[in-house]
């Protein structure tokens, strides 16, 4: 981005030190294409799930404008049952978000967490949508923006949408499609199916499909591309000079190129580095929204909305077994945004202060080596 050029200069040194696998002359860079321009690429199943989340999000945003959210519609959209979508092709699709959602153990949000938030969004909005105040669920406005929060300032729409981006899209990329089960040496990379490539190629393309980018996306043109989900949020890091978009795209292209050329060393290197670069999307976006919530601390609508976004991106960090942040540190960051209800912790944004927001930000920036840019992301 030209407009950030001057600002970028300061960040270049840092950017090269934090992305450990910068392209080197030995890499395939001289020959791998600059864009995701391969033959036999099909990720229509991922696109369908991205579209499903878009319709689910639209339903969840209804309370922002004073229309109650429908519990059955949301749960049906999550599971793709009973033809809930306006887009008929989604109803007839065999794809769904729920079956691909993380549902294992541990601390991260699971299928039942998301269903709980959908149910509560419906019950709260059906109970009434007056003005939000601390302790009272309702709508808070700022300028032309309006958001529906629970009594603790939590915007379920963000928790669910950004949370599912983590628990479905990121989780599928980090734990399924860049792992041996889908791209290991035992996976067929010989039999080419027209339009889909080999099994191994197809699996990698499916990972790419969850990103929400375009095949033409580069670090240079990201401002002009129509991006969704994590691809859209990767811009936050790139805007701050971290080349987040370019780094993620480079590894996606490298992996596919290596698979097609049967260079499995590079494939494995790309898979590992992709997970690292992709993880930075969550970290940078979380910091971006923490900064926003500090800047708008006196504005209930903007503060709660941005903390909800930040919290959901922090929670998303869970869905990668190789994550750079330790479980202890991650729980510590989450605790800045939660209260203990006697045995279980729930998000509550009434007790945050500028000081605790800064502590959460500093913890993330230290873990992810983002200290130099933490105030400008």
């Amino acid at each position: 981005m030209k407009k950030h050029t001057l600002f970028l200069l300061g960040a270049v040194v840092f950017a090269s030190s934090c992305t450990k696998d910068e392209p080197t002359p030995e890499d395939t860079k001289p020959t791998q294409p600059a864009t995701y321009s391969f033959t036999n690429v099909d990720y229509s199943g991922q696109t369908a799930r991205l579209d499903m989340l878009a319709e689910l999000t639209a339903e969840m945003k209804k309370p922002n404008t004073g229309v109650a959210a429908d519990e059955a519609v949301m749960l049906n959209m999550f599971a793709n049952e009973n033809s809930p979508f306006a887009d008929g092709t989604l109803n007839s699709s065999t794809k769904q978000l729920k079956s691909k959602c993380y549902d294992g153990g541990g601390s991260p949000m699971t299928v039942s967490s998301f269903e709980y938030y959908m149910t509560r969004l419906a019950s709260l909005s059906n109970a009434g949508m007056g003005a939000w105040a601390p302790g009272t669920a309702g709508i808070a406005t700022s300028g032309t923006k309006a958001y529906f929060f629970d009594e603790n300032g939590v915007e379920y729409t963000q928790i669910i949408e950004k949370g599912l981006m983590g628990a479905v899209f990121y989780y599928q990329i980090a734990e399924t499609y860049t792992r041996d089960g889908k791209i290991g040496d035992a996976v067929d990379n010989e039999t080419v199916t027209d339009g889909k490539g080999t099994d191994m190629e197809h699996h990698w393309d499916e990972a790419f499909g969850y990103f929400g980018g375009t095949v033409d996306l580069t670090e240079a043109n990201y401002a002009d591309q129509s991006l969704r989900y994590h691809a859209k949020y990767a811009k936050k890091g790139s805007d701050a000079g971290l080349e987040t978009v370019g780094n993620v795209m480079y590894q996606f292209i490298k992996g596919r190129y290596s698979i097609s050329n049967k260079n499995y060393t590079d494939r494995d290197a790309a898979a590992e580095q992709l997970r690292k670069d992709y993880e930075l999307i969550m970290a940078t976006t979380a910091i971006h929204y923490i900064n926003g919530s500090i800047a708008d601390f006196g504005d209930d609508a903007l503060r709660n909305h941005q903390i909800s976004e930040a919290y959901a991106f922090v929670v998303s960090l869970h869905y990668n077994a190789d994550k750079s942040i330790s479980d202890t540190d991650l729980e510590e960051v989450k605790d800045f945004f939660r209260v203990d209800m006697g045995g279980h912790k729930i998000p509550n944004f009434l007790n945050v202060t500028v000081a605790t927001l800064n502590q959460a930000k500093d913890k993330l920036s230290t873990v992810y080596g983002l200290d130099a840019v933490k105030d400008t992301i």
Partner: protein
Amino acid sequence: MKALKMVMILGSILTLFMAGCKEDNPDNTDGSEFDTNALLNNYSENIILPRYQELATQMNLLMGATNDFQNDVSAANLANLRTALLEAELAFQPCTSFEFGPASTYTLRSILNTYPTNESIINQNISSGGYNLYTAGNIAAIGFPAMEYLLYGTNLTDQEVLDLFAADAEAANRLTYLFDVVSQSQVVAGQVNTQWTSGGYHEVFVNANGTAVGSSVSLMMNSFVLDFERFIRDGKVGIPLGVRSLGTPNPEKVEAYYSEKSLALLAESMDAYKKCFNGVSSTEINGVGFDDYLIHEDAEAISHKINTQLDLIVAKQSILNGPLSEDVLSNKPDVQAVYDEMQKLIVSLKVEMPSALAVLITYQDSDGD
């Protein structure tokens, strides 16, 4: 939107270049380059520092009046305290355009002036006696609006206010709460002032030259424009008028609702805003400001347009009778006229001026969600 900004930037770069060509500059030195350092020095030394100094002074006086009131809950001390509060609120108005650097670090605006205040949270805090005034949940229970609620209440006689601090069952807690909110605002205003004066931010500010994202000109202009758009136009006038509520006025959302001094604060704010644009100090010395920068970049017409429009806003607002909370109900067309003139200023402030000076307005969130 980004593409449009790029076009604007490229356009302004071109303008800058062409302006350079037109200067009397035969020997091709860079003598025509605008001295942003002089501009930054003027803003810091003659405008920002004195304004924060005055705020800190008034906050100290307010704290003193609060102590007197605590020691002797009397009608005279209540009157003094109300006067000190108004003076502090007036002193805050010229500070709102600089919400970057220290003010951003300490969230000065949010702590001092988040309104409307939340009466029930204030009352809960007084009853419980246990609170952290810095939490998000208490942001609408602190600062000037909370002090006003405590010192004026709604439809209370002076004696009834005094009783709440002397005879009421929660009188002691209420006095403590008043002390705590005044103290918090005093501390935060003092921290911001100290950061600028002896904390090293003046040096950081004047040395961050240029107009790129992160430069002082960029930070200041973004804050200056945001202040007008969101906090003066919308906060002081538009939201009470009902522009965000389908035309239904919200009299209780005016600034200084309880003291009914909204118009005095608005007038002070507009006066300070114009002085800031023109680089005029509190002692009326006209130094290097955004107006001079525009003139230098062959954009005198934009500078003139902004000044003319600022005058028009002041002219329209001077017609209002006050208090604003009544004007938005009984005198709506005149308040609408003020808002309309404010609205006309937006394009000059937010598009024409930044474009002419090659500054990017970055405060708008482009997520669309």
